[in-house]
């Protein structure tokens, strides 16, 4: 059975700049339109009212997402559904929470167990046996935040897995 699919994404257009994983695999990307910075500012303020501890780092009219921020230098929208393939093709390995260091990646999962978000570790604080982990995190197409790893809206899920491509010293 062959079904002709409709509505090909604009990501198929010829002006797309290709992005490759370290293995050479071309990472699929989407291409949302640019956003009004004033509108993003209003929404960012609204989010700040929910979670006072989050720090707005930047707003960008160029619509990349969390995966694009980490794996494509803020240049692309890459669906979170590709995240395991990207880990694989980029040579990442899973580590425990106790092994997390700056530069590592946290994968969030929603209540259905699906990957919902990724964030980049920017600080690990140790207080006795407690470890506070701060991340740089892009929420959807709009804003980058710095926050403690648990400080995300419920729908972005919870920190579930930790990954690194570090070579052990």
């Amino acid at each position, binding site marked *: 059975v062959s*079904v002709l699919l409709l*509505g090909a994404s604009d990501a198929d257009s010829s002006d797309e700049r290709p992005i490759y994983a370290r293995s050479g695999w071309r990472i699929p990307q989407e291409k*949302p*339109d640019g956003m009004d910075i004033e509108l993003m500012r209003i929404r*960012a303020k609204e989010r700040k009212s929910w979670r006072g501890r989050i720090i707005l780092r930047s707003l960008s009219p160029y619509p990349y997402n969390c995966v694009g921020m980490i794996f494509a230098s803020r240049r692309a929208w890459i669906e979170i559904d590709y995240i395991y393939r990207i880990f694989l093709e980029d040579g990442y390995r899973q580590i425990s929470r106790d092994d997390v260091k700056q530069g590592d990646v946290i994968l969030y999962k929603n209540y259905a167990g*699906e990957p919902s978000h990724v964030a980049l570790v920017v600080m690990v604080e140790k207080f006795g046996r407690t470890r506070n982990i701060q991340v740089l995190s892009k929420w*959807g197409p709009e804003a980058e935040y710095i926050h403690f790893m648990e400080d995300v*809206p419920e729908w972005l899920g919870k920190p579930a897995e930790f990954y690194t491509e570090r070579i052990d010293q």
Partner: protein
Amino acid sequence: MTLSDLLEQIESVHFAAQMNIFSGFRSFRRALADHEYVDALMDHLKRHPHDNERVFQRFLDLLDKNERPEFLHPYDPALACYLWVLGETNPRLAYSAVEHALRTPRLWWARRLAQYIVEKAQKTVSQTIALGPGTSFSVVFSPRDQSTFLRYRFAGLQPLRKQLSFGTSSTDVGPREEDKVDNASFRESATYQIGRMAG
């Protein structure tokens, strides 16, 4: 809560700020399906089915409300929400809304949801009309006469086109050069056809 109150909530900054945090369409869809505003609107429409038309009209009004057309539509999350709700409560209006959404530039979630509704409808048709071994078929939408066609391919036989009349039987309309239909034309025309699929 009145319908106006519900619509106001869905078009609020609060809702847009909540719904524009996702990095994948699947997560967005899941959040939409679980959102309390969406639940409330669906409940309302089940109790007051005639209000589906008002939601549809509101959808059309919002589509035109992009004061800075060089940027992503400011009501994109709300538009996606209305599409979703109509898809659940009134497929006929939903397909008409899909048609408008696919023709409107600067949509992101709403456009992807519209495409999702189209693809879901196609799969439904494919699954409904299962053929035996040695045969295959494609669902083909013609941009020229805005009809929906089913293309059969039987081993060793010429392709045969049939016009579908959804919910009833199909009628022969004779062979045509269906492969001239390219993706760009499909994007333009798909929603007309999907509207017919709803019958």
